[in-house]
């Protein structure tokens, strides 16, 4: 084989791998992306039950209740609209009423958000970026200072 042919072959191999990778990415992107919504978004956009989404907002004061076993319920609010959430399992250490929270799961037919993940964070000053942005947009939350 000449140098040119060899080069062509390497190029083809490279393109083939790239094509496979691109195919995988497109396929995976189709079903495995989770959109982030605030309670207002959910009421406005009428998200169909069963769609996997992230719900973010503040845990409403006085809404946190422990149920049977490891089940907990609370309400997520962006101060305009609220969504009730139920979750089975242990909450992250920094979960508190009045604090920001991001949960992942799906709405059921009654409008209850069934979460299977409640996002933890490492730092009490930390506010998830998507949450901070949307709360700022609605004028509910201002850039906090370190205490």
């Amino acid at each position: 084989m000449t140098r040119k042919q060899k080069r062509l072959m390497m190029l083809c191999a490279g393109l083939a791998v790239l094509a496979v990778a691109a195919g995988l990415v497109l396929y995976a992107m189709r079903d495995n992306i989770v959109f982030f919504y605030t309670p207002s978004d959910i009421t406005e956009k009428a998200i169909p039950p069963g769609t996997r989404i992230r719900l973010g907002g503040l845990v409403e004061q006085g809404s946190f209740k422990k149920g049977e076993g490891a089940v907990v319920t609370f309400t997520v609010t962006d101060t305009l609209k609220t969504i009730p959430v139920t979750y089975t399992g242990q909450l992250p250490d920094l979960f508190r009423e009045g604090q920001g929270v991001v949960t992942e799961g799906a709405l059921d037919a009654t409008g209850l958000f069934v979460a299977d993940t409640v996002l933890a964070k490492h730092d009490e000053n930390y506010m998830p970026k998507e949450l901070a942005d949307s709360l700022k947009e609605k004028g509910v939350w201002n850039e906090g200072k370190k205490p």
Partner: protein
Amino acid sequence: MIAELGHFAVILALAASLWQSLVPLYGAHVNDTRLMRAASPAALAQFLLILLAFSALTWNYVTSDFSVLNVYENSHSAKPMLYKISGVWGNHEGSMLLWVLILAAFGAAVAAFGNNLPPALKARVLSVQGMVGLAFLLFIVTVSNPFLRLDPAPIEGAGLNPVLQDPALAFHPPFLYAGYVGLSIAFSFAVAALIEGKVDAAWARWVRPWTLLAWMFLTLGISMGSWWAYYELGWGGWWFWDPVENASLMPWLAATALLHSAIVVEKRNALKIWTILLAILSFSLSLMGAFLVRSGVLTSVHAFAVDPQRGLFILVILMVFIGGALSLFALRAPALKQGGLFAPLSREGALVVNNLLLAAATATVLIGTLYPLVLDALNAGKISVGPPYFNLTFVPLMIPLLLLVPLGPMLSWKRADIYPAMQRLWAAASIALLTAILTFAFHFKGPWAAPLAIALGAWLIAGSLSEIAQRAQFFKVSPATAFARLKGLPGQAFGMALAHLGVGVMVIGITAVSAWRTEIITTVKPGDKVEISGMTLTFLSERTLEGPNFTAEQGLFRVTIGDREIGELTSEKRNFRPASMPTTEAGLHAFWSGDLYVVMGDKTADGTGRTLRAYYNPMVRWIWIGTVIMFLGGLLSLADRRYRVGVPKTAPRAALEATA
């Protein structure tokens, strides 16, 4: 006073790095030896000055000098000494100082040990290294000064984030940074080679050990982070495909590719342009990792409070270096001389496939990490890309790569025959097949692919062992001769086999824990028993404990299998002073076959019991054991006499053949 000394030292280091960036570069351009020689002392001076600054900050932390803002914000006098020291880099400003310290240390190492480098190349390498240092020192002096004073000085500090008060995390950042920053050497060598317009085997012989060193640190750093997340965060997981984790995985993948392509440059003088590009991209991904983690553009479970102004500064550094290096590459790379020829089926060909797959895998991780940012910037919605995406893209690309790993070393350089190579692997293939059958027989409950993935791990392990066995010619010559040959094998050969074996061990661990983990969430009262994976977990009692800077509620559990008592373990909920921040300490019991992982939760509604989450994580430790084996493989390779920097420019013919 000490803080001002540190501040002053940083400014002097800035001046030294400016000198280091400009003078040797000009010297190399006009071929003035005196000016080129200025590089080494400047690099050493820069290192010593930053070391002084870092020591000053450490001193402030050790003595709990709360008149320094950074110490006040991140330390507390009641903290154990280890965490006072690790607190130095447990915050933004301090971690950036550690970053430039390691950067300067690598530069100083090239200055000190690079005496046999061609003077012009050495001058240019140190100059580029100086530029990177200059950028980050400028960053520290302008927007990220750790030595700011606080007046009046508070009596007590605000404390370090308690989840960071952990031995594994105390050492995780230095290792990770050593890995990130170590890649700067490969970057500097690449840029210097582009300026010079020359890449040869000697160049690759220099780049390889430095890349290997960086890769080893990165491997261990990522592994420690994963281990920490596993037992400290209390979720029982070891990898979350979180953007911050991806930010460290991408440079690791690129460095792994670079490590392999540099072999081709050294041994066969081919793939030169690609290797240069890879060296630039590896460090670019490191810089991008620093930017992503430090700028706050990401939504991450690991994110800490951040400052957007700093993010912008790092973004500018990022653009200057990546853009500059890539422009230089575009201008100069076509002028580089073509290298040696090789057939597609050859050792070189196998290494090209390795590089293609690793590069494609890096790209999929990059897309998954950046896509949400791009969408957000375009105002097209806020999304998150989670583990399913990465499992569907990254894993399918890794499988062919891992399948080919044992085959590569069996192929000869330049042109190879596939059948002899396959023949030499029949033993490894049989072992893999047997493993698959046995795993299937004992574990038929899990997903069907799991036994195959376990077999893949066995294939990697057996392939590495048979590679060594065949080099020593076991089964061909008498055992005594074979052992003698084994002793004579270069460290590099063992290093490679060990590193590949480590990958196999890790694959088995990852497969087992992903396919066969069990999880139970329930509520318990003292005396209750919970069954998990054939074990009985009894909740004995709970009590309150006082730690040095926290109060803990501790649950005591007993583990039994049948009537046999295995042991007791404790899980705690700690509440740290002074921030009143709670953390969870998981209770772990390690068996040879896996971990029992117990997390005691909050009190139940009626106050009599506790929520309890328990996992059985089969073979989970193999993951970290695998990474440690990979690290040791790198160490063995690095210790190889022929590989050591500064030994013969041309290795003896016999030695070359032994590695071929």
